[in-house]
């Protein structure tokens, strides 16, 4: 069943799909994830979602879809179920064209589930691909941007029934959207990156949704999610920078990431019993073993429960907890180019200077 063509997301494979997309996350809010899955199940039960391969797209326009804000808020302020459809329709009206399909902004956690729900609700196919190959914190951090496709204009649909269009430079989008999300109750759905089929075929990362599906159940083919074990050990310490001590996260000032930086220290349980340091700010962006880089963003670094092999949320880590640290290579070589690293460059305190490291240093630990 290797490379088996998967024509659609339907009730038969939705659960495997949901399990698979979960494996690509750095951490997940369980309640938000369940709310997104319930949403997808409701829509997919009514109508299955055809999957379009990137090299087989019909002519026409496409858009990307994403949830913005906190996934945890999704479980507190439940969706009406029309938010994604409203966002797509609003963007279609603004750009003056009907989209031929929807591509998830990323293939991790809640986003592909909500994209599947939106596709089912709108009767549009879902593109088997995404713009990240994983999840990244900012809207403009996509391979679409790397290929010159603008994130805007974007349509925002809130659970408060607000529909908005933001037509602004890409560098302003994040700054504008955060207060809107806060006013909307903590989350919203955005339709963005309006693009042609040719642009999507060139910029999208192919097959990531079917990969997730295979990753979620062996019936759909061998697990394509190849990870490299970095360490098995025990958490020996958790450090918070002075500017963001535990329990008092730094304010989300303009240009900063919407979370606090944290360092996780791990004692390897087997020889050579290395001293590991994982640096995280929204995601784990760096892994050091005895001061040597063994993995770094854009490769994805995950902390797993050694028993269940599920990702452990960073905020749930405790000192003394046994963990398994794994690395999933970046989905696209585009992320390792100079432009890819520049796009990754974040302005949070803890990561300041990280992307200024020489390429030699950063590639040292590459598999």
């Amino acid at each position, binding site marked *: 069943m290797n490379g088996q063509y998967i024509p659609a997301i339907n009730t038969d494979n939705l659960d495997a799909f949901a399990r698979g997309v979960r494996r690509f996350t750095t951490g997940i809010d369980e309640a938000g994830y369940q709310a997104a899955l319930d949403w997808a199940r409701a829509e997919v039960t009514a109508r299955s979602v055809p999957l379009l391969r990137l090299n087989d797209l019909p002519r026409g326009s496409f858009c990307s879809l994403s949830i913005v804000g906190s996934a945890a808020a999704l479980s507190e302020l439940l969706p009406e179920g029309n938010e994604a459809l409203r966002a797509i329709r609003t963007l279609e009206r603004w750009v003056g064209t009907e989209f031929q399909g929807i591509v998830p902004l990323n293939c991790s956690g809640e986003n592909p589930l909500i994209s599947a729900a939106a596709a089912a609700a709108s009767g549009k196919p879902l593109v088997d691909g995404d713009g990240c190959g994983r999840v990244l914190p900012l809207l403009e951090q996509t391979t679409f941007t790397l290929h010159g496709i603008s994130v805007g204009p974007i349509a925002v649909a809130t659970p408060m029934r607000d529909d908005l269009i933001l037509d602004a430079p890409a560098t302003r989008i994040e700054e504008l959207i955060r207060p809107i999300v806060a006013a909307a109750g903590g989350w919203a759905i955005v339709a963005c990156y309006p693009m042609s089929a040719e642009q999507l075929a060139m910029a999208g990362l192919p097959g990531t949704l079917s990969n997730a599906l295979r990753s979620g159940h062996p019936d759909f083919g061998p697990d394509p999610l190849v990870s490299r074990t970095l360490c098995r050990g025990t958490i020996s310490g958790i450090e918070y920078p*002075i500017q963001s001590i535990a329990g008092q996260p730094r304010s989300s000032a303009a240009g900063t990431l919407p979370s606090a930086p944290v360092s996780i220290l791990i004692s390897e349980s087997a020889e050579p019993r290395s*001293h590991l340091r994982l640096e995280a700010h929204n995601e784990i962006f760096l892994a*050091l073993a005895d001061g*040597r880089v063994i993995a770094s963003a854009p490769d994805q670094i995950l902390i797993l429960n050694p028993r269940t092999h599920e990702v452990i949320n960073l905020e749930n880590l405790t000192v003394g907890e046994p963990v398994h640290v794994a690395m999933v290579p970046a989905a696209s070589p585009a992320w390792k180019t100079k432009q890819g690293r520049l796009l990754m460059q974040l302005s949070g305190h803890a990561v*300041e200077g990280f992307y200024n*490291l*020489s390429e030699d240093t950063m590639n040292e630990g590459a598999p």
Partner: protein
Amino acid sequence: MRERPSKDLTVSDLLRDVMGLGQAFGGDFTGAARSVQIVDSLDAISVAHPHTVLVLTESLASSGWRVEMALRSAWERAAACVVVPHSPVHEASVGALADRLGVPMFLSHENPFQVAVRVAAAIAQPEATRAALLARVAHELAALRDPMPRQIMAVLERALPQKNIYFTGPDDGVLLGHIVTDHRMESTQLLVTDEHRLTIGTLVVQTPPDSPDSTGKIEEVLELAAAAYSLWAARTRSHDERAGVRSSLLLEQLLSGDSEDYQLLSTALGWPAGGPFLMAALGLTSASQATVDPAMVFRSFWPRRPDFSPLMRYKDVWIGWYRLKGNAPIDDDLKAFSKIVGTVVNKAANTVPCSAGVSGCFSSMAGASQAILEATTAASVAVAVAGRVVLAGQMGPEQLLATLPRQAMTQPARMVLAGLLEADVDGTLLKTLACLLDVGLAPSLAAQQLGVHRNTITARLQKIKDLGYDPGDPRQRLALHLACTVLVPGI
């Protein structure tokens, strides 16, 4: 020990000489420090030369991961050490990595640029740094004014970090510090002597393998400390000479079971260490009416030798002891010591009538209490005759009886022996009776002592019995013996 070129300043030197290098990690401070580099980016370390002191700027050191990467690069570049601006957040974790990699790392509260300038100055002038070290040690010792051993040791430990230092007494027993039993350690030692060139002890510095510090430098520091130890011992003894009580107080402290600081202070006072010993007690005879201080007289004749303790007052006698040679029979030592003690009391007796007692052999000062009892008892027996020395091991009834107050007992004694004295015109019978009682009524021994035939003794004993005196009768024996001792002294 290997001598290094003097131009090589070590990390250890920097730790000691460059103020502002705070808490240290990494363990190995023996590497040479030949240059300094201010590091404001991780890539800058990749061009650092070996043996470079890397001083991280505050911005670079603001995150633990950057410090850890800097430590790793420092390890790969064989840097001398890394100086990191202090951060309470990642102090423990980066310190653990420095320990693991063995990269010396210092947490500094000072401005990194100022630290770098001081390090550069120290590296540029290593000889001046070394001279500054000696000057600082000398200054610290001088500042002690009345140096005490532990204070001197503390100065040494500050001056010679990462080394093990201890001080032994003349018998090689450790008085301060402890010995590290690692055959790889190299030792530098210096004998500490007093003003008479008698050994006070030995200062020993144990240096880890491949230590960059030269023996010469260690010896220079030790010489300064040795002078301070000599001064301490001289002052202690001088004080004791003047006051004459320090040794007595220490002896009483020892006898009361309080041994704190005993080893150290006894060394300063010149007490012989180790053992075994013989104890002497010198006392004034009952007829003594000295007009000068007996202590001054005794001390002027008492030997000043490393194997003789100083003479010290204990109750109404003066105590001193001698450490046996250990390679001669104890009897020989006992004779030699008794002879010396005899010489002392004989010479002193011209000014202050005195006598002495000598104890049996005791193995250590833990047995001093019993030895003093023996010596003082023997001395109390000896008081009957000025210049006399009685050995505790050879005391018999005659020695004890000799201590009786003769004057008071003369009249009662004459009453006890009235019948015999009346018949004994030339005193022969009295002398024979006294001798028989002293030798346990053995006629042969009495004959031998008095130089007469055994039968003569037997005949005289019969005459004595005929007069009503039977020394074999338990009811009469003690009274007869006491009376004879009082009336026939010196037998």
